[in-house]
């Protein structure tokens, strides 16, 4: 399922999400998270941005979506007192707030249009008056400012600047965008399953090279659960998940509902 969207036409992850919600004509309070997540990932896959910063912003949202998606696939914990919070709630609130500001900015745009039709006059203060410049009383202006205080202010700025330099990131040389192919990963995960039959979820994730690979691997697992090709067990909360590969062959991406 590929969606044709104009690449990089979005201001950010929230903007893209709103577009997808709009496009799918779904209720913002009831986002079909699976569909939207898939389309979202599909979109960022097409993004050819070399700008790591922009890409990472979109990836953070991808992780959020996958997180929500996984929470929704899991059975809700049976608690009596606590009301079960929809995992989508926080995202919905953010989206609504963002949507509100988009609406306001449209209103402001109209206001600016109207206001730009009012014209002003440049000052016409007679030269001899304009030439008059009152003396600023520096001493009064500085008040009880001491040199020590001025130095403190300076030091705090210099310190702040030093803090800004991230010791880890500043050591990075060049970071290149890697291609994580969803179709290939989907097949790869099945190959892994066919080989090991019963394996640890944690080991599988640890074998992944990057965050993007982890995300895509995780998505593949979810998909394989959905189409009944694997089974999972977990002894206790936060224990490792053991995956059993049930099938004897491998399905291609097109056959699955990705």
């Amino acid at each position, binding site marked *: 399922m590929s969606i044709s969207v104009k690449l990089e036409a979005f*201001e*950010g*992850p*929230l*903007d893209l999400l709103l577009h997808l*919600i709009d496009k799918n*004509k*779904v*209720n*913002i*309070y*009831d986002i079909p998270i699976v569909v939207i997540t898939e389309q979202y990932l599909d979109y960022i896959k097409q993004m050819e941005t070399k700008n790591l*910063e*922009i890409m990472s*912003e979109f990836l953070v*949202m991808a992780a959020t979506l996958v997180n929500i998606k996984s929470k929704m696939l899991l059975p809700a914990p049976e608690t009596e007192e606590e009301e079960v919070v929809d995992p989508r709630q926080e995202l919905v609130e*953010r989206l*609504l*707030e*963002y*949507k*509100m*500001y*988009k*609406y*306001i*900015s449209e*209103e*402001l*745009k109209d*206001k*600016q249009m*109207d*206001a*730009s*039709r*009012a*014209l*002003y*006059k*440049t*000052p*016409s*203060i007679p030269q001899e008056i304009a030439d008059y410049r009152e003396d600023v009383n520096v001493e009064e202006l500085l008040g009880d400012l001491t040199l020590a205080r001025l130095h403190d202010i300076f030091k*705090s700025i210099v310190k*702040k600047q030093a*803090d800004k330099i991230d010791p880890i990131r500043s050591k990075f040389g060049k970071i290149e965008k890697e291609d994580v192919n969803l179709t290939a990963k989907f097949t790869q995960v099945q190959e892994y399953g066919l080989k090991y039959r019963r394996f640890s979820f944690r080991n599988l994730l640890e074998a992944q090279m990057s965050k993007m690979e982890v995300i895509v691997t995780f998505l593949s697992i979810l998909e394989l659960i959905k189409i009944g090709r694997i089974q999972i067990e977990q002894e206790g909360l936060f224990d490792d998940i053991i995956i059993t590969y049930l099938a004897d062959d491998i399905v291609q991406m097109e056959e699955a509902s990705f």
Partner: protein
Amino acid sequence: MEIKLIEAQIEAILFTIGEAVELERIAGAIDHDEETTRKLIHNMMDRYEEEERGIHIIELDGAFQLCTKSEMYETIIKITHIPKKHVLTDVLLETLSIIAYKQPITKLQIEQIRGVKSDHAVNKLVEYNLICELGRMDVPGRPILFGTTEEFLRSFGLQSLDALPIVNPEKVEDFKLEAEEEMQLKLDI
């Protein structure tokens, strides 16, 4: 005819200075207290409207400025070139809306709402003099707090921040209904 004279003085001041003049300064120049001065100016404002003049007085956060009425625009551009104002992109407008409603606000807070880095937008808005630094927030790192300027009010035809368009709860309900209708539409198919 004391009042006539004072009004003439106020008109002359606003005309000469051309920019927004604080009530305080006008009051000082005409030698009256601020309350009286404000009343006088408000009276003048009404008269400018009644008399269907080509110019009027606008109020900007307690300061006053003379400018042409917007209906005059077409005629004026016929004989003089009006320099274009900065065109604000959607990104800038969106960032500006957030700052206008949430001020004082830090860059980080803006970024949390927008979901994207906003350095460029914030810097551009500072450059256009639509926002300015208000000081620093008293938390570790002491981030800069931003707020809107007088130029912002002028550019958007707002008397004060109170005149910002209000998003009432009904509007939010509308968004919801809209979304639901869209949903219904889908179910009907």
